[in-house]
C-alpha cells in the first residue's frame, strides 16, 4: 500500500502551507491602541468566549493550512496504490522490470524463487495497457546491452522466457543505470520494479554514488522473493595445494575449506574430489554454524600437463554453490645426472650421498619429482646428456675436453648445471674449460677447523629458487649452517645469491643461452660444511634442481570468479597474435594479444559461466611461457550466502531514490490504483466551505 505522485515537482508548494501561519503571526504584530470606557465588558466577553474562541481560531488556522496542503497535493496528483499495484489510472506507464538472475536466486524460496520472480514479471507484463511501454532487464548485465521500451507484450514475454539464472552476482549498478537511461524519455508514469531475493552480496557492491544517471522522482519498487525458512547454507570457500608441487605420480595433497553461512550445523556433508572427470576421493565433513572446516585429499596424477578438477558437496537440502573447479599443471619427473667426483666404497662417504638422498629421499624410483643418476668421472666421456634436464658436478677434479664442450652445449639449449666445489676440484681447469659459462672465476681453496666455520650472512629471497626461505624454519636452518671449507671465487659482475659472513660468495648464478649454471663454492657432502645435515638442505637442493630445469611447473590454480578477467602473460614476440578460448558451453572466442610494458598480454573477460575454460595458445607459446592451457571459472563464493539486506538498510543505500519493498505475494493479490485527485478536490471544497463558515463566526 503506497501513495505516489504523478507530478511530484508541485510538492515544493507545500512550503506555502506555512503562509496562513505567517499571516497570523504578522497580524499579531499590527497592534492598534484605543481608549475605551467599557473595557471591563470586553474582559468579561473575552473570559466568556476564550475557550471556544481559541478552539475556533486554531480550527480556522488548521483549515486554511489544510486548504493549501490539499491544493498542492491536488496539483501533484497523488495516486493511491494497494497491494503491488498494477496499473490503472494516472496516464500511460513507462516501466522497467529488473529481474534478479544472480546465482543466489537458485536457492531462494526453496528453489522456486526464480520461477516465482518470472511469474511476477509475467504478471506485470500482462497488466500493461495498450499505451504502456516496458523493458525487461536481468540484473546480471554488463550495461552494454541494447534494450528499449516496447509495448508488445508477446515480445516481452519471449524475452522473459529467455532469461536464465547466471553464475555471477547481480550488477545492480549497471541494471539501475540502464533503467534510468530507458526512462529518461517523457512519460505519464515512470516506474522501476526490481524482482529480487534481496541478496546481501549484490547490494554490498552497490552504491548510488557509482550511478552515472539517477532520477529520484522515479520510485523503485522491490518485489521480494521470500524464503519459507532458513535452509542449510554453505559452500566451498577455497581450494589450495597442500604440498610444494604437483608432479606426475607424486603424492598430491589438495585442501578444500568449507564455509557454513547459516545458524545450523551442516552435518556429514559428502565432499568429493574429482580430477579429469574421475572421482578420486570422497569424505564426510561437518561444518559448524557460521564456521569453517578444512577437508584434505591425497591423490596422484598419472600424466604431466594440465588437468581440470573439482570439489563438490552433496547434502540433501543444502543451499549454496556445491561445485568449485580448479586446474592442475602436473610436472613430469626431472632426470638429473649426478657426477660424483669422490666416490667411496661406503656410500655414506661418497661425495654425492647426501645430494642423491635430498633429490630422492625415499630412494625408490617414482617417489620423487627427481630421478637422479649417479656416475663417476671416468664415465664422463661416454655420458649422453640429452635425457637429463639437470647435470650436477660434485667435487669433480677436472672436466674432460669433450665433456666440457657437451656440457656447455647442453646448457645453451636449456639444460641446468649445478657445480659443487670440493677438495679435489682444480679451479684453473674449470676456469679454462667452462670459460664464460661459470658465474665466477674460481680461486684458491680455503679450509680451516670446523669450529671456525663461517656462517651465512645474507641470501636473496627474491630469487625464485630461494623463495622457500621465506619460511622462518628453513631460513633459521640455513643460517645455522657452518662452512669451514670453500673455494674462493671472483664473481663476474654478478652478485652472489648467498654470501658468507666474511663476504665470500657461497652461491652464484649465470644464465647461458636458454639454460642456467649455478655454482656452489662449498662441497655437496659434509667435508666442508654441515649443511647436508640441516633441514634446509633438501628443499634447497630440490628448489635449485627445479629452477635449473626451467622453473617451477607443478601447481594448482584455484580459478577466477565469474565475470572477473583472466590474464595470460606471454613473451613479447606474441604481440599482435590471438588466442582462442573455448567456454564450458563449447562457445569459442578469439582474444587478441596486446603489448604491455615488456610482455604480451591476453585479457579474457568473457568469463560469464562457471566451469573449465580451454585456451589454445599460438604455436610455441606453451613451451616458451609455460602459460596455462586450461583455467577454472568459479561462481562467486559470497553469492552462496543467502543473507538478505534489510528494508531499512536498503532504503538507506538507495537514498535519495525512493524505494519500497513489496512481498511477492502482494503482487499475486493484484492490488489497485486509485487517482486521489477527485477525493482531494472534494476535501479542498469542504475545507474551503468550512473555513468560510467558521470565518463568518468571528
Amino acid at each position, binding site marked *: 500500500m503506497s501513495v505516489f505522485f504523478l507530478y511530484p515537482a508541485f510538492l515544493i508548494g507545500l512550503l506555502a502551507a506555512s503562509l496562513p501561519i505567517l499571516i497570523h503571526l504578522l497580524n499579531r504584530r499590527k497592534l*492598534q491602541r484605543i481608549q475605551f470606557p467599557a473595557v*471591563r465588558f470586553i474582559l468579561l466577553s473575552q473570559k466568556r468566549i476564550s475557550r471556544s474562541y481559541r478552539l475556533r481560531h486554531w480550527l480556522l488556522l488548521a483549515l486554511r493550512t489544510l486548504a493549501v496542503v490539499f491544493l498542492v497535493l491536488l496539483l501533484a496528483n497523488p495516486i493511491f496504490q494497494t497491494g503491488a499495484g498494477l496499473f490503472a489510472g494516472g496516464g500511460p506507464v513507462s516501466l522497467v522490470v529488473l529481474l534478479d538472475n544472480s546465482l543466489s536466486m537458485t536457492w531462494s524460496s526453496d528453489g522456486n524463487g526464480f520461477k516465482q520472480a518470472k511469474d511476477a514479471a509475467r504478471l506485470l507484463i500482462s497488466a500493461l495497457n495498450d499505451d504502456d511501454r516496458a523493458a525487461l532487464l536481468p540484473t546480471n548485465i554488463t550495461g552494454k546491452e541494447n534494450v528499449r521500451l516496447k509495448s508488445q507484450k508477446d515480445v516481452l514475454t519471449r524475452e522473459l522466457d529467455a532469461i536464465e539464472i547466471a553464475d555471477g552476482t547481480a550488477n545492480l549498478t549497471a541494471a539501475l543505470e540502464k533503467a534510468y537511461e530507458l526512462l529518461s524519455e517523457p512519460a505519464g508514469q515512470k516506474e522501476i520494479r526490481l524482482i529480487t531475493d534481496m541478496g546481501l552480496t549484490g547490494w554490498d557492491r552497490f552504491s548510488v554514488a557509482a550511478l552515472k544517471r539517477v532520477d529520484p522522482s522515479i520510485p523503485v519498487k522491490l518485489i521480494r522473493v521470500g524464503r519459507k525458512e532458513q535452509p542449510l547454507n554453505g559452500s566451498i570457500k577455497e581450494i589450495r595445494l597442500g604440498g610444494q608441487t604437483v608432479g606426475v605420480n607424486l603424492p598430491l595433497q589438495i585442501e578444500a575449506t568449507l564455509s557454513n553461512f547459516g545458524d545450523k550445523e551442516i552435518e556429514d556433508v559428502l565432499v568429493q574430489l574429482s580430477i579429469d572427470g574421475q572421482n578420486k576421493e570422497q569424505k564426510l565433513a561437518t561444518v559448524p554454524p557460521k564456521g569453517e572446516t578444512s577437508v584434505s585429499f591425497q591423490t596422484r596424477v598419472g600424466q604431466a600437463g594440465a588437468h581440470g578438477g573439482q570439489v563438490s558437496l552433496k547434502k540433501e537440502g543444502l543451499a549454496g554453490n556445491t561445485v568449485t573447479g580448479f586446474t592442475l599443471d602436473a610436472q613430469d619427473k626431472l632426470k638429473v645426472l649426478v657426477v660424483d667426483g669422490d666416490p667411496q666404497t661406503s656410500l655414506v662417504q661418497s661425495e654425492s650421498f647426501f645430494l642423491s638422498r635430498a633429490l630422492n629421499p625415499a630412494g625408490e624410483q617414482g617417489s620423487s619429482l627427481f630421478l637422479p643418476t649417479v656416475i663417476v668421472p671416468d664415465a664422463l666421456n661416454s655420458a649422453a646428456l640429452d635425457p637429463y634436464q639437470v647435470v650436477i658436478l660434485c667435487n669433480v677434479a677436472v672436466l674432460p675436453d669433450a665433456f666440457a664442450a657437451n656440457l656447455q652445449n647442453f646448457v645453451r639449449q636449456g639444460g641446468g648445471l649445478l657445480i659443487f666445489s670440493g677438495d679435489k676440484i682444480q679451479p684453473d681447469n674449470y676456469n679454462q674449460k667452462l670459460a664464460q659459462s661459470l658465474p665466477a672465476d674460481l680461486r684458491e681453496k680455503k679450509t680451516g677447523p670446523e669450529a671456525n666455520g663461517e656462517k651465512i650472512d645474507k641470501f636473496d629471497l627474491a630469487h625464485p629458487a630461494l623463495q622457500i626461505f621465506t619460511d622462518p624454519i628453513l631460513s633459521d636452518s640455513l643460517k645455522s649452517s657452518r662452512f669451514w671449507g670453500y673455494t674462493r671465487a671472483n664473481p663476474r659482475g654478478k652478485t652472489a645469491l648467498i654470501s658468507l659472513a666474511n663476504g665470500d660468495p657461497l652461491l652464484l648464478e649465470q644464465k647461458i643461452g636458454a639454460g642456467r649454471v649455478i655454482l656452489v663454492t662449498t662441497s655437496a657432502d659434509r667435508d666442508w660444511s654441515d649443511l647436508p645435515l640441516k633441514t634446509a638442505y633438501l628443499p634447497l637442493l630440490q628448489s635449485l634442481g627445479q629452477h635449473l630445469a626451467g622453473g617451477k611447473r607443478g601447481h594448482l590454480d584455484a580459478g577466477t570468479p565469474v565475470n572477473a578477467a583472466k590474464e595470460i602473460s606471454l613473451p613479447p614476440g606474441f604481440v599482435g597474435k590471438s588466442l582462442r578460448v573455448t567456454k564450458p558451453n563449447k562457445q569459442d572466442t578469439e582474444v587478441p594479444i596486446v603489448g604491455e610494458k615488456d610482455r604480451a598480454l591476453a585479457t579474457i573477460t568473457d568469463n560469464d559461466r562457471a566451469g573449465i575454460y580451454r585456451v589454445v595458445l599460438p604455436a610455441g607459446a606453451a613451451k616458451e611461457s609455460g602459460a596455462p592451457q586450461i583455467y577454472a571459472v568459479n561462481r562467486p563464493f559470497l553469492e552462496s550466502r543467502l543473507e538478505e539486506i534489510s528494508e531499512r538498510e536498503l532504503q538507506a543505500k538507495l537514498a535519495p531514490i525512493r524505494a519500497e519493498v513489496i512481498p511477492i505475494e502482494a503482487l499475486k493479490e493484484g492490488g489497485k490504483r486509485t487517482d486521489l485527485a477527485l477525493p482531494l478536490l472534494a476535501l479542498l471544497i469542504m475545507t474551503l466551505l468550512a473555513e468560510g463558515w467558521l470565518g463568518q463566526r468571528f
Partner: protein
Amino acid sequence: MADGRKNYFDPKVLAGISNLALRARWVVEGLMSGVHKSRAKGFSVEFEEHREYSPGDEIRRIDWKALGKFDRYFIKEYEDETNLRAYLLLDASASMNYASDGITKFDYACTLTASLAYLILKQQDAAGVVTFSNRVEAFIPPRAKRDYLTQILHALENRGPGGETNVGKILDDIAGQIKRRGLIILVSDLLDEPAQILKGLRQFRFKGNDVIVFHVMDPAELNLPFDGNILFEDLEAANLRVMTDPRTIRTTYQQVINEFIADMRKQCHDNAIDYQLISTATPLDRALASYLSWRG
C-alpha cells in the same frame, strides 16, 4: 419643515454648537414647537420660613397670626411657586469623555441635562443640577426662577469630565442632601457596579422621589464595531487594558452589554424607576420626549 426640525436634535448638528445655552434652547424650542403647550397643573404654595418684615415687602404677605404671638411683623416666605423640584444628576467621570463618532457622551449628557433644565424651568418648575465623578463636583439646588438656567449652564460648562465613576456612593451622598421630595434625573453611562447604582437610586425612591435614569452610551459601546488587533485601554483605570481582535468577541460583547442593560432596566422597573437607554447617536428629542411623557 419636518426635516428642519429633525436637525435640531441631531447630535452631530448639536456637536457643532459650542454654546450650551443656545444648544439647549434650540433643542427645547424645536421640541415645543411640535407639541401643544400644556397648562400648568395646580400651584404650589409651600411654606418655607418666616422672616422679619422689612419696608418694601408686600403687606399681604405679613403673617398676622405671628404678629399676635410674637408682637412683631413676619413675612411668610414660600419656597417656590412651582409644582415640581427636579434634580439633574450629571455623571462627569472620565468614562463619559468618549466619542466614537462626533459628540462625546459627556457633551451629549450636558446638552440633555441643559435641555431638561431649560424645559423644566420653562414650565415653571424648579430645576437643580449636581455634577459628579467620584465626588460631587457642583451642586446647584433647584430653583424655579426663569433666569436660574444661567447658573445651571454655568455649572455645566465649567466642568469637564474626569476622575473615576462611583455612581453608587455619590447617589448615597446626594440622597442625604436632598430634604424634599421631587424628581431625580440621573444622566450617566452607569459604568459602575449595578448593585451600588441601584442601591443609591433606591434611596431616592424610599424618600418618595420620582427617578428617571438616562443611560447614555456611545454606539461603539453597544456594538464594538472595531476591526484588527486592538489594545483597549480603559479611560478611568490606567492599568486596565486588554488586547483582542474585536471580531472574535463582538457577538459575546453585545450579549454581555445587552445583559447589563436588560438587568438595569429590569431592576429599575422593579423599583418603579423610569429607565431610558440613550445612544449618543439618538436625536435628543427622543430623550426629552420620554421626560415629557413622564411629566404627562
